[in-house]
């Protein structure tokens, strides 16, 4: 499928760092697109600034609108309301969508236009040098929190649900098949859909938190993926109790 997906949907290879979690998302996303038969000629990808925003633009062979930092959801609102026949998909990072652009995210969730928003959450600002973001776990090290992040992070699932998003999901890149299934469900959903994609940044996050998180072995990204798998659990298993403090993954529909 690698070759098929490349030739059908992409323009060029990505410039992402080796092992980038965003690349794994891109892979899962194109698997989902292919399985779903999404018409790229009727699809607009809107993205802002940051590594996550580079997943669709300039890589996808579709209309792409690469906009100012944090405003992708607001631009997408204009695109979709002006032409409701278009599939409008926003892909960006946690800095872009949940930090500088948090206001647009919650209002889009409230407005409930059928936009699809994928937040590639790598817990910091990767492109600008590893600064703390609104999703950096408390205590973790970034280039602007050398002693550990003193602030609490957003739980993006709770944030989007609280804002009224009728479909919210969280999947890790370390479980690409679940991720792909979630992407298919999000893209097939007829209302606003938000996904907190647990991504990974080996370059900025991994190195800084290597000692703290215990990332070991010759392939740090593999160690990070293994670690991520251990920190998440399906929400169904955690709904009653969660003594180990695992991050729930899965899908939350408005009715549930």
């Amino acid at each position, binding site marked *: *499928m*690698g*070759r*098929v997906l*490349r*030739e*059908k949907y992409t323009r060029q*290879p*990505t410039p*992402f*760092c*080796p*092992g*980038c*979690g*965003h*690349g*794994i998302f*891109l*892979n*899962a996303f*194109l*698997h989902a697109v292919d399985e779903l038969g999404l018409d*790229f*000629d009727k699809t*607009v990808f*809107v993205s802002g600034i940051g590594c996550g925003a580079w997943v669709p633009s*300039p890589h996808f*062979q*579709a*209309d*792409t*609108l*690469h*906009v*100012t930092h944090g*405003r992708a959801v*607001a*631009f*997408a*609102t*204009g*695109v979709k*309301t*002006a*032409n409701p*026949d*278009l599939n409008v998909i926003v892909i960006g990072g946690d800095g872009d969508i949940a930090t500088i652009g948090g*206001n*647009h995210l919650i*209002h889009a969730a409230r407005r409930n236009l059928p936009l699809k928003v994928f937040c590639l959450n790598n817990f910091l600002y990767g492109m600008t040098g590893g600064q703390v973001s609104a999703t950096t776990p408390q205590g973790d090290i970034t280039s602007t929190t050398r002693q550990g992040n003193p602030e609490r992070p957003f739980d993006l699932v709770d944030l989007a649900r609280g804002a009224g998003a009728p479909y919210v999901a969280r999947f890790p890149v370390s479980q*690409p098949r679940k991720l*792909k299934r979630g992407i298919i469900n999000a893209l097939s959903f007829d209302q606003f859909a938000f996904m907190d994609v647990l991504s990974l940044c*080996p370059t900025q996050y991994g190195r800084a938190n290597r000692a703290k998180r215990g990332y070991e072995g*010759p*392939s*740090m*990204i*593999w160690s990070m*993926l293994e670690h991520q798998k251990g920190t998440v659990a399906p929400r169904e298993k955690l709904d009653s109790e969660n003594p180990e403090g695992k991050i729930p993954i899965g899908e939350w529909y408005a009715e549930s």
Partner: protein
Amino acid sequence: MPRNKTFAVTLDQDLCKGSDCYICVNACPKGVLAEGERITSKGLRPAQVKDPDACTGCRICETLCPDLAITISDTSQAATTVPAVGRRQPASPSSGGWTTSPGALKPGPHYMMGDDACAEGAIAAGCAFYAGYPITPASEIMLRMATRLPETGGVFVQMEDEIASMAAVIGASWSGLKGMTATAGPGFSLMMENIGYACMTETPCVVVDIQRAGPSTGQASRPASGDIMQAKWGTHGGVEIIALVPWSVQEMYDLTIRAFNLSERFRVPVILLGDAIVGHLRESFHVEETVELFDRAKVPGAPPFGTEEEAGVPPMPAFGQGERLLITGSTHNEFGIRKTADPEVQQRLVRRLSRKIVAHLDEITDYELYYEDDAQRMVIAYGSTARSALWAVKRARDHGEKVGMLRLKSIWPFPGEVIRQWGDACQELIVPETNLGQVSQLVQQHATTPVSLVSQTNGEIMDPRRVTDFLLDGRTKLAS
């Protein structure tokens, strides 16, 4: 996995980013993939397929590869064929250009507020999208659009702030609709970044700024003309823009139509700089039988961000037409491909964005002359201040002063040559302004004649007596 199946494992070593990744090497439960031995010219050591026969077709490596470098194919089945790329179904070309339209209001006289006339001008100009945020003294434009757009098949959205409003208008413009937003000082400040984005991506749209007394929150319902410089220089980087300055309800209607035409003609955001006087003033105005409208050209397959001409305006396709548009605020070539380190592309783009405006200065420039035939001194005025200034000019002429007036209807790009000519023909140029002297500085740059500023910054309409005093006595008696 049934063992009667066999799989071919292909790893594209040109795409593999090597030893810092090796996700596949770690992931493969059967040791099919292994660390590489060859070091590429990029200094990478891509993984290699070491034991293809051991592949069970679990595809874990394929789904995890961040670079889509791995392809697993079931050799017991027919080879996967990639459908031909090029599913483009190009939209029919539209040459764009001028057309005559019947307009939206009944022809003849109408009586309404300037803000309402602006909204009606937008509807007449074919505006089909409005995104905005409430702010005095521009809210009435939004209120009217909220009623009129649904009536005319358009789209209205109230956004969460002015940043989002400007963003939505740009998005809608690329979806093929003529779009507008309206705001005042504080909201205009918030729009600046995305106005620059519209300039860079050559997105036609109209931004109405009903100026109020600032800085900051200032006096929300009081007039001023403090945003003249901001209109051009507010967004970073430095770029040419078009701005028009209405002085009446008639012009709130007419110049809004013109703003849409200029934005479509030059693919640029056009700013209508009203103020709290012309916005809130109620007076009668005349609606013509027809309006002349300009629509952007669409040429399938043509590069949407470049032309052969240095001052050219490229055609503009819309989303969903199979053009696979690459639209970016980064420096880009004519196809929208980023060129963020290419000095030549940067220079060519910035120059063209500027030249497409300044090379058409004559087409854009609009002004009116009063009592100019025998004028030895000329008042240069604009916006609501020109109403007071014209009254003052008449009083001065009653006293035998040979004073004329030049009223600017377009202010950016600044019509420096017109100012130079009138400066040469007169002994003095007088610029009354409800700011600390923004246009008077521009006038000074272009005129060799002495230039005088009559400034008032008290949040009131320019006091006509202030200008009269200056014209008669060479000084103002009122406190500014």
